[in-house]
Structure formats: structure tokens, C-alpha cells
């Protein structure tokens, strides 16, 4: 009885650790640049040299974005290209702050949004080169 229980426990523990190891492997898994498809590489061209050094989770998020790339207009694709590298070089906290503020702005009525964007560009944005517009999109 005791031996059966012990064998049962050892078997279950082995199963637990195997499953957890596999799960961890899947979570950490993100394709290398050479493993990407042609459309994915096309969308991620500006960060080709950085790709393999990015955290797995960030690569997974960027891969989801690439699915939307083909739907963009050529002008939007140009803007996307110019902003992709600075975006990936921001810290996670900065990206989250940007998303938060973007969401907040989306909640403002459209006419106000345009006015806020214009004012920001004219006042704060013009004070810093980092806010310079890459192209006139949308």
C-alpha cells in the first residue's frame, strides 16, 4: 500500500514538473528573425537587427501587430516604419503609459481630440524634437 502510494506520488510529481516545464517553454518561445514569414519580416523590417534581442513577450505582441500591417495604407505603413524602432526601444512602462494616454484620448469626443492633438503639437510637441511628426498620416 505504502509503496503503491509512493509510486503514485512520484509519477504525479513527474507529470506536474514535466507539464510546468513544457508550459514555461511555450511561454518563453518566440520565433527568431530567420523563422519569420515574409509578410512578418516585411512589417518588421525596421527592427530586423533588434528582433532576436527583444524579450519573447514583446516579440509575441509585435507579431500580432504585423497581422494588421497589410491593411494599412502606404502612408500609414511609412509612419509605422518610422515609429517602430523607437517604440521597441521604449521601456515597458513607457509603452503602457502611451497606451493608457492613447485610450484616454480616444474617450474624448472627436472634435476635441483633434484640437488637443493640434495644441499638443503646437505647444509641448514643438519644444522637443522627439515629438516631430514623421509624416502627415490619417
Amino acid at each position, binding site marked *: *500500500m505504502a509503496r*503503491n*502510494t509512493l509510486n*503514485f*506520488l512520484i509519477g*504525479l*510529481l513527474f*507529470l*506536474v514538473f514535466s*507539464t*510546468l516545464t513544457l*508550459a*514555461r517553454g511555450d*511561454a518563453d518561445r518566440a520565433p527568431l528573425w530567420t523563422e519569420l514569414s515574409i509578410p512578418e519580416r516585411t512589417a518588421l523590417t525596421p527592427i530586423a537587427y533588434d528582433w532576436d534581442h527583444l524579450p519573447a*513577450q514583446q516579440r509575441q*505582441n509585435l507579431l*500580432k*501587430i504585423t*497581422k*494588421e*500591417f497589410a491593411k*494599412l495604407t502606404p502612408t*500609414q505603413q511609412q*509612419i*509605422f516604419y518610422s*515609429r*517602430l524602432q*523607437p*517604440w521597441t526601444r*521604449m521601456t515597458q512602462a*513607457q*509603452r503602457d*503609459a*502611451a*497606451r*493608457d*494616454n*492613447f*485610450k*484616454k*484620448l480616444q474617450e*474624448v469626443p472627436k472634435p*476635441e481630440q483633434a*484640437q*488637443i*492633438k493640434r*495644441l*499638443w*503639437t503646437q505647444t*509641448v*510637441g514643438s519644444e522637443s524634437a*522627439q*515629438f*516631430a*511628426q*514623421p509624416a502627415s*498620416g*490619417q
Partner: protein
Amino acid sequence: MTQHDDFARRLTASLDQGLMEIDTSTSQRLASMRRQALGGDNRIPAGHSVLAWASRPAWIAGFLVLALLLAGWWFMQPAPTPYSAETDILLLTGELPPAAYADNTFSQWLETHSTF
């Protein structure tokens, strides 16, 4: 004969005497239990309560390990991204660059200027 041998002899004699004094029904019950123990008869005690089920440690251990497995799997799942790919693509192709939104003063600035 040592003192220990003498003690052992008296003890076994006493036990043998006691064995002969056991009545038939008790003797049969003991024999039955001995056979059960040696034969590996692991039937659970009669009864339908949870306690009867729980008297099998293998089941409890298995249940606990499976619970741990599920908890571990749940904890190891990556935290759901609160923003969709659509949000990121809009942010990356919008009128303002992402750096503007990431600016520490933007949120405060937004609150001040969104009351037109």
C-alpha cells in the same frame, strides 16, 4: 542460561498460555484479519461518507497534486495583454507619435485641455 534467556522463555510461555485461552470466535476473527493483512486486501471500510473515501491517502495526495498542477499552470499563464494589437497599430500610425503619449505630462495636460 542468562537472565535474558530466562525472561524470553517466561514471556513466550505466558503468551502461549494466553493464546490457548482465547475463545474460538476471537481466534477466527484474528485469523481472518491476519489473512486480510497478508493478502493485501485493501477494501475501504464500509460506509458511504466522505471520510470513508478520504481514508485512502493516495486519492488525497493525487487530488492535491492535481490541484497544484492546475494552480501552477494558471499562474504560469502570461498575464493577458490589456491592449489589443489594434490599439498598438492605431498608436503607431496615429497623428501623434507614441513618444508624445508616453510623456509624463501628457495625461495631466489632457485633463487640463479636454474641458473645452
